[in-house]
């Protein structure tokens, strides 16, 4: 649901079904102060070596122009910074439309420092045969409150892929709504999370198959440690007549200790007859036998745990087709997994 960050009366509450496990008003008690410190750069990225040139106007509204200059690869670098007294807030909205057959790799990097609240909304409109791959890194401070919403419309034969990698925050929610056009259109919405301490991460996805012959694939893998909480809410709605739909949703989580939490709500709502839909959801613990095997070969416990943790989430990143972006994400995951055990 849309809401105004600066108007607490409009905030979603736990009485809203989709916000049952993530309580915004508990993390953000009052409206934040509008921020002047938000840093937004849309950069045309030559990922090969990461040289880039600034091409945006510093606002999310300028995204379409940045895409025009980007020649298929855009790096969106967004950092929020808190004020010394009180919580600062940023709210922004942007739109990217891809023309027929156009393709784009969008790397979104959300970072920041101190106490801030951010609410960003991105709209993506894909024309026939357009290809969009979003790789999102949510590497925010533990004091942050952040809600990232996106609304996607697809057209026949278009491809929409999103990969979200998150370490959580005081409150962190990534929400995607996709209108699936079917007719050969493909949607993939994957994700991986590594949460520790008090971190909260909520990954909510909504896909609506409105027409025939569309596919949706999801693989979400994550870990929670300490007192961290992960929420995964995935809903795939297949409308009457959307025959030939093929939808698969898988969520696999590891809880590394008692006290860590994982809340999963996978939903398939099917009104068509001739469809293939599947979902799987597993929550377990780290494999102690594998841990012993690693240690018996000489790895200390921290190294072995970090290696196995990283190995658990790596399959998500390995699906990224672009080699440079994939390697960047793999390095980031290795660094974050090591950080869990002070490496």
């Amino acid at each position, binding site marked *: 649901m849309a809401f105004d960050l600066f108007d607490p009366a409009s905030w979603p509450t736990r009485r809203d079904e989709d916000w049952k496990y993530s309580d915004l008003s508990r993390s953000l008690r009052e409206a934040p102060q509008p921020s002047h410190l938000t840093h937004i750069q849309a950069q045309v990225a030559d990922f090969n070596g990461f040289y880039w040139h600034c091409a945006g106007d510093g606002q999310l509204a300028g995204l379409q122009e940045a895409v025009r200059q980007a020649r298929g690869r855009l790096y969106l670098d967004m950092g929020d910074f808190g004020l010394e007294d009180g919580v600062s807030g940023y709210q922004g909205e942007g739109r990217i439309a891809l023309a027929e057959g156009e393709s784009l790799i969008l790397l979104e990097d959300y970072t920041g420092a101190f106490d801030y609240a951010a609410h960003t909304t991105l709209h993506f409109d894909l024309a026939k045969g357009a290809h969009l791959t979003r790789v999102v890194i949510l590497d925010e401070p533990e004091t942050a409150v952040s809600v990232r919403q996106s609304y996607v419309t697809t057209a026949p034969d278009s491809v929409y892929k999103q990969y979200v990698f998150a370490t959580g925050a005081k409150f962190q929610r990534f929400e995607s709504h996709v209108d699936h056009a079917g007719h050969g259109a493909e949607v993939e919405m994957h994700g991986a999370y590594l949460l520790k301490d008090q971190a909260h991460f909520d990954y909510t996805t909504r896909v609506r198959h409105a027409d025939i012959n569309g596919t949706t694939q999801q693989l979400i893998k994550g870990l929670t440690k300490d007192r961290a909480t992960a929420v995964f809410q995935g809903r795939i709605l297949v409308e009457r007549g959307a025959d030939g739909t093929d939808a698969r949703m898988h969520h696999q989580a590891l809880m590394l200790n008692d006290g860590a939490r994982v809340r999963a709500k996978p939903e398939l709502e099917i009104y068509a007859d001739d469809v293939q839909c599947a979902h799987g959801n597993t929550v377990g613990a780290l*494999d*102690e*036998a*594998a841990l*012993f*095997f*690693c*240690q*018996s*070969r*000489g*790895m*200390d*416990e921290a*190294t*072995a745990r970090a*290696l*196995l943790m*990283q*190995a*658990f*989430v*790596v*399959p998500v990143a390995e699906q990224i087709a672009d080699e440079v972006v994939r390697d960047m994400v793999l390095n980031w995951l290795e660094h974050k997994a090591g950080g869990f055990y002070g490496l």
Partner: protein
Amino acid sequence: MLNIENLTVAVEDKTILKGLTLNVPAGEVHAIMGPNGAGKSTLGYTLAGRPNYEVSEGSATLNGEDLLAMEVHERASAGLYLSFQYPLEIPGVPAMTFIRTALNAQRKLRGEDEVGAPQFLKDIREIAKTLKIDTEMLKRPLNVGFSGGEKKRMEVLQMALLKPKFLILDETDSGLDIDALKVVSEGVNALRSPERGMLVITHYQRLLDHIKPDRIHILVDGRIVHSGGPELALELEAHGYDRYVNEAA
């Protein structure tokens, strides 16, 4: 080299090893044979430090160092290598990454320099070739979807790279066809040296045709009940363990 005295071990409150004593000098290969449930694998796991294996009595030292006082990874760095009967699958970790992480962790603990990627690649390719392991396989997650023979060849590859002082081979022949058994045995034999000791745990005499032991010990109900030369294996193959089981009872 390896000295075990009066080792008594319980797993989940059940005593499995009941005062086991065994000495394997450097340069020798000893075999442990015995019926199911005698405690063969428990011995290997206890020496390697598997959690929940409770030692209530006895000692185990490697070159005078107290193994039982060490953490699992410290035992590896001290030179102990347990080759698993069922090597574990490690999804998401390429074999090469796994081995290099293990090698450098051991070297770090011993105060040695890490092995750089180029040298490591050179070493691993060379050894993989002798074990008939395809280089592509080294990029795949360790043991995931590997056949029994491939897993055991991976175990030998790790031994050859980690260069342990003492090897325990737990039922290394299980799951191997005759060709794989030959390749694996040749790999193990190549590691025999005057400075290195080996303990071969096996059910059948078959493996000992390929890895010839200096001594054979018969383990029944948690104790070594008989020791002898290589000829003992043939006798066991002909008459079985019954005689020793009845004596122990």
